[in-house]
């Protein structure tokens, strides 16, 4: 025992590494299914607030593609969830990222109906200032609901700005940058949809659907 102290210590350490890893593997195994279900449920709840469940007949959570457009959608891995009824497009929900929030990126869900109007916008995550920029959350103010029904013609595309910049959208007292960047990002998403609406709803080849 005293002859190889380092060996003993190493073995002990290995023993604890193995038992720690086993504990984690066990916990992971017990929770993985539930965690996946939680995430799916949270996503479905968000999606169905924007695309009413009775307006579609497909499984919108599973029917998505991943696209890249850094300029208009803010990222290389933007998911687009596609709602269909009788195989006709109903709405597309973009996980648009706003790259230029006041303190970091803001993640949105932007639902665009097949008639180019907005089904609604929600903020999924953000780091904006509490009490000022966080009025973009649905629980803190009604501002985010104002996007519903808007399109590039209503208001006119030149009015897709906050009021301070001569546009049609309210800013908040003490926070202009946050709403400004969100309005811009929603407008860009609408523009992207306008250019790509046909290809977005193309029946997904099997390989696209299976790669995240």
């Amino acid at each position, binding site marked *: 025992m005293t002859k190889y*102290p*380092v060996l*003993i*210590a*190493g073995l*002990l*350490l290995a023993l*604890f*590494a193995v038992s*720690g*890893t086993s*504990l*984690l593997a066990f*916990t*992971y195994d*017990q*929770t993985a299914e*539930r*965690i996946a279900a*939680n*995430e799916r449920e*949270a996503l479905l709840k968000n999606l169905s607030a924007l695309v009413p469940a009775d307006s579609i007949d497909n499984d919108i959570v599973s029917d998505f593609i991943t696209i890249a457009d850094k300029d208009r959608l803010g990222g290389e891995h933007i998911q687009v969830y596609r709602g269909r009824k009788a195989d006709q497009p109903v709405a597309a929900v973009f996980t648009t990222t706003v790259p230029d929030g006041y303190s970091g990126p803001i993640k949105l869900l932007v639902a665009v109906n097949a008639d180019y109007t907005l089904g609604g916008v929600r903020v999924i995550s953000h780091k904006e*200032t*509490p*009490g*000022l920029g966080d009025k973009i959350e649905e629980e803190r103010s009604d501002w985010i609901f104002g996007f519903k029904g808007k399109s590039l013609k209503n208001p006119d595309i030149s009015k897709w700005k906050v009021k301070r910049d001569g546009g049609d959208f309210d800013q908040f007292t003490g926070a202009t940058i946050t709403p400004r960047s969100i309005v811009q990002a929603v407008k860009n998403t609408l523009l992207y949809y306008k250019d790509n609406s046909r290809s977005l709803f193309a029946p997904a080849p099997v390989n696209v659907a299976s790669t995240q």
Partner: protein
Amino acid sequence: MADTGYSKLIKDGLWSNNQALVALLGLCPLLAVTNTAINGLGLGIATTLVLTLSNVTVSLIRNLVRPEVRLPVFVLVIASFVTAVELSMNAWFYGLYKVLGIFIPLIVTNCAIIGRAEAFASKNNLFRSAIDGLAMGAGFTFALVALGSLREIVGMGTLLSQAHLMFGEGARGLTLTLGEDFNGMLLAILPPGAFLGLGFMIALKNVIDGRAASRKVKVVLAEAQTS
């Protein structure tokens, strides 16, 4: 040291050696998550769980582990428990997990936990270590909730907002709104408010301790005079 009773362990954890207010350990999560009372409670419970589990485990293996690998083993034990707690919260308290986010894995870096493992659990038996973990955790939770409540009241004019994340939808009604027109003092919610709030709490604790100490001195003096 060895003959100190359980009541002293509990008193140490909750008050005299409170890890947050006296030892000033674990400040990173303490300052970062305490913008509401519920956030503080959530992280406090998670920390208590990890602290108790790690204290128990360290105490069980204290005669087995050689001194050379003591610290790596403690870190391994703590990291395993933290990850297990994180996964469990993700599974059963999804809403709260979303709010606390990065701070659950950061429990690993809470020096209070390895501090208790090294200073207490590695030298004491199973039961005493468990009590110490619970008491220290409760004291830390108390500090988190007190600071969280303070900042929430001053900063937002509410108390127990988002209680439904922890206790389910039925708890929505628990939220207290203090004054309809009170928009809150933003400073309290922002990081400086955490430092200020903690400063006031430590000051208050010192005042209370100071009063208690001077009273004791007076009693001793009075006894000395009468005898």
